[in-house]
């Protein structure tokens, strides 16, 4: 108990806690104690009672993916008869229409992500980005590290070259997806064909070094143990000390339906405990995002008192989590109502968390 109190004291004095201290706090502290500490820290970083959100759309340029992650309900394997199977690569017309609609709805960015399609090389991505930039003045937040790593290997480039090429073609920032849990023993089990944790981190390091910002995510509630969660956050925190390139951290829970991993879904209390710990542990990341897509509107609103200061995206379109049987939808009006009812001022932001 004395040990726990000394960790709590450290947190309150805004001192950094290490992995073991984080783990002890996570395991032993009462639910509302974690909430209070995280809430305190949230107001320390963001004294104004503002909660931000972004208006954007997820565009999945392809669902064909060679990775075959066991937790994924979205992908279609390559080399199927695509008339029969549901594999696609987005057409220019569809892409245009989706972005046009996003702009019409006040959207400021698109989140462009897709599968690791074995037939697509760097030229495809350059063309995709160029096409968008020629037609729209919109922020492109795109290609998570596993995609960049895949393109790099496919096109025999270095990570740094790939990023530089994509940046020149119009890529503005990188989403923190595909991190799952940044521990290779777990990655071997859940996503053996995806980039390793050091490769994931290297993509982010190179992007940050070239002046690009990115977010970071963590998907938990599959095969990891508690300490993996803290190892993951420790790796993110260490890289952030070096680059200061991460804008936000977004923890979310694995959704087991329609996947190959048979585990019980994490409960809301477990989610909120991890969320609060991410606010307390990641002392060098400004923004912590609530995940209404996996948690629903009520827990997302509750999350605003457990360390989160951002509601993420209104997400005009979301396909990946929806494939795993979770189908929460929130309009901009509903999202801002939730924020207001919780006693905060809702403010639309851009990708860099600047208020619009």
């Amino acid at each position: 108990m004395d040990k726990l109190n000394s960790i709590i004291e450290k947190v309150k004095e805004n001192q950094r806690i290490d992995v073991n201290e984080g783990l002890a706090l996570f395991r032993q502290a009462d639910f509302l104690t974690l909430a209070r500490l995280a809430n305190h820290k949230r107001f320390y970083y963001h004294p104004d009672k503002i909660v931000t959100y972004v208006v954007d759309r997820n565009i999945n340029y392809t669902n064909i993916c060679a990775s075959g992650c066991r937790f994924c309900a979205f992908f279609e394997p390559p080399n199927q008869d695509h008339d029969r199977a549901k594999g696609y690569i987005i057409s220019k017309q569809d892409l245009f229409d989706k972005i046009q609609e996003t702009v019409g709805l006040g959207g400021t960015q698109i989140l462009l992500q897709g599968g690791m399609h074995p037939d697509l090389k760097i030229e495809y991505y350059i063309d995709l980005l160029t096409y968008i930039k020629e037609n729209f003045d919109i922020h492109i937040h795109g290609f998570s590290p596993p995609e960049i790593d895949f393109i790099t290997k496919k096109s025999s480039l270095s990570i740094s070259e790939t990023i530089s090429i994509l940046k020149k073609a119009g890529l503005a920032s990188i989403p923190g997806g595909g991190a799952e849990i940044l521990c290779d023993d777990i990655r071997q089990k859940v996503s053996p064909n995806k980039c390793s944790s050091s490769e994931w981190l290297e993509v982010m390091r190179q992007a940050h070094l070239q002046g690009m910002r990115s977010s970071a995510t963590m998907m938990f509630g599959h095969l990891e143990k508690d300490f993996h969660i803290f190892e993951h956050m420790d790796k993110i925190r260490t890289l952030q000390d070096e680059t200061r390139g991460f804008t936000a951290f977004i923890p979310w829970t694995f959704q087991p339906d329609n996947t190959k991993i048979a585990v019980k879904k994490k409960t809301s209390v477990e989610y909120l405990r991890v969320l609060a710990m991410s606010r307390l542990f990641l002392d060098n990341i400004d923004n912590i995002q609530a995940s209404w897509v996996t948690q629903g509107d009520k827990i997302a609103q509750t999350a605003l008192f457990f360390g989160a200061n951002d509601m993420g995206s209104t997400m005009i379109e979301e396909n990946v989590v929806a494939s795993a049987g979770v189908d929460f939808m929130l309009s901009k009006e509903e999202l801002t109502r939730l924020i207001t009812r919780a006693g905060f001022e809702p403010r639309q932001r851009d990708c860099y968390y600047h208020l619009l």
Partner: protein
Amino acid sequence: MKLPPVSDMSVSMFIDKRLERIYSKVLKGSRLSKEDGICIYETHDLIGLGQIANHVRRSLHGNKAFYIYNQHLNYTNICKNRCRFCAYARDRKEKGAYAWSIEEIEKRLLERIDEPVNELHIVGGLNEDLNFEYFIDLLKTVKRIRPGATIKAFTSVEIDYLSNLAGVSLEETIQSLKNAGLEMMPGGGAEVLNSRIHEELFPRKINHERWLEIVRAVHKAGIKTNATLLYGHIETIEERVDHLITLRELQDETDGFSAFIPLAFHSGNTKLSHIPPTTAMDDLKNVAAARLMLDNFDHIKAYWVMIGEKLAQVALSFGADDLDGTIIEEKITHMAGATSAKGLTKDQMEDMITKAGFEPVERDSFYHPMN
């Protein structure tokens, strides 16, 4: 058992300093005032409020969180009251209208006879086709088929109606029902104990004076009841607090209330469908307000059907000590668009409780643990 105050009474315990006064009252065991109640509903310091409510909840029940294995029987949806907030009721000739015969009731009980059901929750509409004998028959049938389970049936609204139907006094009506097997009453039909809201939303239903009169008589007959508050429609904060204080006063007098259940209004398919759903902030505050204002109630329920399973789990740390039942076939709230499950298994219930950091206790209707 009184727990010591939350050890760390540092400044950061409350963001809203008004909560310090409420906390110190709670620690001294003083009753909260109407102004305190309003402050509880107005504060945006959800975690500060949660800590006070959790303190009271833990003083009363420690680490225990209760649930019951129950079955709902909604014997008819035909109702002459047609309250504006209700999506369940039908007129006699309307599509989807139904009334179960005694044989149908029997069939539904037998369908689940292998399950360890400990309580039958029986409520329905005011259906003019059913006579008083039907209700006596209903209770006797349930008792015959499920002798080990407790019958928790009929809101005050139904009791008033049955008394008219039987043409005898309220006391005699209650006695007849009790003799036929009625052991407990749920808390519905109170909505908000307020004339303005009564006029606007449920003018044909009994008013709040009558509701209180009936509950008083039921308690006097030795039957425990629950109490509820339907929130999230047109009621004001002050009206909510007045409602809680009215219940608290009656409880001082009768000691007949068992649990209080805040009911989140669902507007789907009702005449108030323009009203948006309650948010987590409303739901958690109502749980906490109930725990703090109703200092003479033993139990506060987080009714997962109405606030969702996920938030009900969180509510266990905001003053609730009971998740209600497994249910299986909830109808009334789902007709109004509830997106929660229609039932939870015992395993799901226990898993939710354990993962919230509490010890699950399966109970009977009177909060005795089942073994």
